[in-house]
């Protein structure tokens, strides 16, 4: 247990439904981590420190100065911890795409618990589960009753369950941006207004993007990135490859583009947009170079998975935040 040092900031990092990448991004500040621990105590970080939930419960309310919560809300444990950490933190930051918009785990909203369990525990190729055993929230054993967190049908974002103070977007957020935010907090600078997105630009990717753009945004055919001979210079959209850049905040240094891959939208929408998927769909649709219904549909056939492409990171935070599934519909009055 860290000895409490007066004057030092208390920092917490927690992961909900996450891949661990955001935690790694914190570590990715490399040697600057030493600068961080010089001014801050890490009071809770499951991936790195053996501090228990009970310890957190013991902390006084609002005693954690900054909590970086990454990962989406997938089950009751994630929600419980979100609520607890909200209580114990002065500033709660939704860190990374999953906490911000739902992220990749959010794509589970195309499915529901029953369908997911069936696939994972019964139908997957290497599974033998003749008795169809799936996780249950409660189970009796001779020692007593065991409980595990309830698995929700719907993946949610952090702000769906608690009030969020700031968002640091990205999958994962760039470590340099994290450092900038941290410096700002440490230096006591005036923080931006609540519920702002920090560590990202207001302008979209195109502003930073090194590729050449023209006004010739007309597409007669859409391609997957590997289907074209990319010249490395021309705007992806102008080559018929879907790039979420225009509807995605900049600030990541256009790193995917620098790697010759189109932007996938992990930094989330620019300030005036609530549903970036819908905006991008509109832009892409407008680019279709045809006025004939049949031709338009033939061109649209090129896009394999519209919802997945445009809502790769933002499904749970979009307007239609989940797929309407028949069984679920029957359960709703």
């Amino acid at each position, binding site marked *: 247990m860290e000895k409490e040092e007066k004057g030092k900031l208390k920092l917490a990092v927690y992961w909900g439904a996450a891949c661990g990448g955001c935690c790694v991004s914190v570590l990715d500040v490399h040697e600057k981590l030493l600068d961080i621990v010089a001014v801050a105590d890490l009071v809770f970080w499951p991936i790195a420190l053996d501090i228990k939930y009970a310890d957190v419960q013991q902390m006084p309310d609002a005693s954690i100065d900054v909590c970086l919560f990454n990962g989406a809300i997938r089950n009751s444990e994630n929600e419980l911890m979100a609520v607890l950490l909200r209580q114990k933190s002065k500033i709660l930051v939704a860190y990374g795409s999953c906490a911000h918009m739902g992220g990749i785990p959010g794509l589970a909203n195309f499915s529901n618990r029953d369908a997911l369990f069936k696939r994972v525990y019964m139908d997957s190729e290497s599974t033998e589960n003749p008795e169809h055993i799936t996780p249950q929230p409660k189970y009796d054993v001779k020692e007593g009753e065991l409980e595990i967190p309830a698995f929700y049908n719907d993946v949610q974002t952090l702000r769906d369950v608690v009030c969020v103070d700031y968002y640091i977007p990205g999958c994962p957020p760039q470590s340099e941006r994290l450092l900038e935010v941290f410096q700002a907090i440490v230096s006591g600078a005036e923080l931006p207004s609540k519920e702002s997105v920090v560590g990202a630009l207001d*302008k979209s990717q195109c502003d930073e993007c090194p590729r050449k*753009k023209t*006004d010739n945004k007309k597409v007669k055919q859409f391609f997957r990135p590997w289907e074209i001979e990319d010249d490395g210079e021309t705007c992806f959209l102008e080559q018929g490859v879907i790039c979420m850049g*225009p509807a995605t905040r900049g600030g990541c240094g256009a790193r995917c583009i620098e790697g010759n891959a189109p932007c996938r939208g992990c930094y989330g*929408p*620019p300030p*005036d947009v609530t549903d970036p998927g819908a*905006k991008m769909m509109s*832009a892409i649709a*407008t680019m279709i170079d045809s006025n004939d219904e049949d031709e338009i549909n033939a061109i649209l056939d090129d896009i394999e998975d519209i919802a997945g492409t445009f809502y790769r990171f933002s499904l749970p935070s979009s307007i239609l935040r989940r797929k309407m599934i028949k069984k679920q519909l029957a359960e709703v009055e």
Partner: protein
Amino acid sequence: MKESRIGVYICWCGTNIAKMVDVEKVAEEIGKLEHVIVSRNYKYMCSDPGQELIVKDIKEHELDRVVVAACSPRIHELTFRKALENAGLNQYLFEMANIREHVSWVHSDKELATSKAADLVRAALKRVSYHEPLDKLSVDIDPATLIIGGGVAGMSAALRIAEAGKKVYLVEKEENLGGQAALIDLSFPYLNPVASFLQPLIEKLSHHKDVEVLCSATISDIKGYVGNFETEVSMNGSKKSLRFGHIIVATGLRAYDPTPMENYGYGRLKNVITSSEFEEVLHSGKIVTDDGQTPKNIAIIHCVGSRNNDYHAYCSRNCCATALKYANQLRSALPEAGIFELYADMRAFGKGCEELYAKTSEKDIMFLMFDPKRDLPEIKEAGKKDKCKMIISMKEQLSGEQIEVPADMVILMTAVEAREEAREVAHAAGISMCGNDFYIEKHPKLDPVATTTDGVFIVGACQGPKDIPESISQAWAASARVLAGICRGSVAVEMTTAVVNEEICCGCQTCVSVCPYTAITFDKEKNVSVVNEILCKGCGTCGSTCPTGAIRSRHFTDTQILSQIEGMLNEGKIKETEKIMEEL
């Protein structure tokens, strides 16, 4: 919903709305919602007292937004906006809910209609809180006028405007001025020679110092906006640029070619001619068949290509009176001939026409009625023993008998229809066409010569079949409007245009090629798109194209429309179900 002080007014429109919508109930319900400071119902909101009510409330209650639920905004939006201006409030802080054309006049269940009206008012309420004050821009009016079409309508308008000392460009597709009227020998109902008034008109225009006549000329596209239009006219291989402040479209109609109507045998039977061809015959002075013989029997068939869903469903208006004219002219020329009028209905309205009909029926003309929708007469070549060139079989409606009419010459009263370049001209001038391809007026009763495009007027037959006096009346009406505009010297242009937020615009350039008016350009230095406010016509296409939300279609912003949707679908307390990013 933004913090506002809203005044709501539900109009009775006499009984037009009140009969089907419980206006008092709506006013009461709406009055309970937050931000609604006053909620009234009144008999005629568009009347002076109605408007004064609004002005008074704005001043007394410090209202900053107004909603009026009444007729269509296309009728009175401007009226109420003026009321706001009179009260010192920016006229765009206003929204109308259409509860007459879209509710009381089209539904028959009072409860459901009232509920729908309330929904529409809630939508307007929510939306108006996000309205922003907008300024109008004043633009100068170029005193020149472009008139497309040198027929009787176009020429009449040209002369009127020129006589007021203002420049006119009269563009005519054919080699000569005159249009369809020039083809006509005598006019109905008084059988005066058309040339007697047409020729002097053409003369005057050709020599008028303020009229530039451009024949064999075509226009491809007109750019600009009211007061400031420009185009390029192509004439005989050369091009000329013109600038003008108003446009009068007078392109007229053309005669229908009855070849597809096999029953009439036009094109196959030599002596079946159209009314236009008959005018040529009249001009020649000799009424003879193809072999130079004087016809003993002449039939005039009405409604050829008109009033029939297989051809044109509408009535071509002039043919009945013209056919009566022909009967009279034939009777004068051929006192002994058998003259048959095969008609569907005798539509001889208008000054002097009923008298023409009466006079004609005394001239030993046989009137035979057929059904234009189901049972068209059939013309066949007569047999050797028949004493005529053709036999027309028809089911005569009044007697119910199938009869045969002898004819050596048949005159088909062909329909009028849109010209083949009608669509091109409509596009160029920025006007719309209806299902019959006639040009659409701003309002069929209240504004028949204006169009929804400011500065562009339509006169004459291009707006719908009409005769010479009507065409001239419209031409003079439009010229008066144009002269009024020129006299004012400037016109206010609405600023409900698109604007780019340069702090958000990332320079993707998706919007640039989307604008039909090329109003968007790209500033390479700043790496942002820029909208030319004057060229922008406020369609909003760029607003829904922009993936970053940088382009705002003023007065039709995302926030405004999304809040309208919310208001419409949420009864009772207006609640925020989604967080909408507030726009500055």
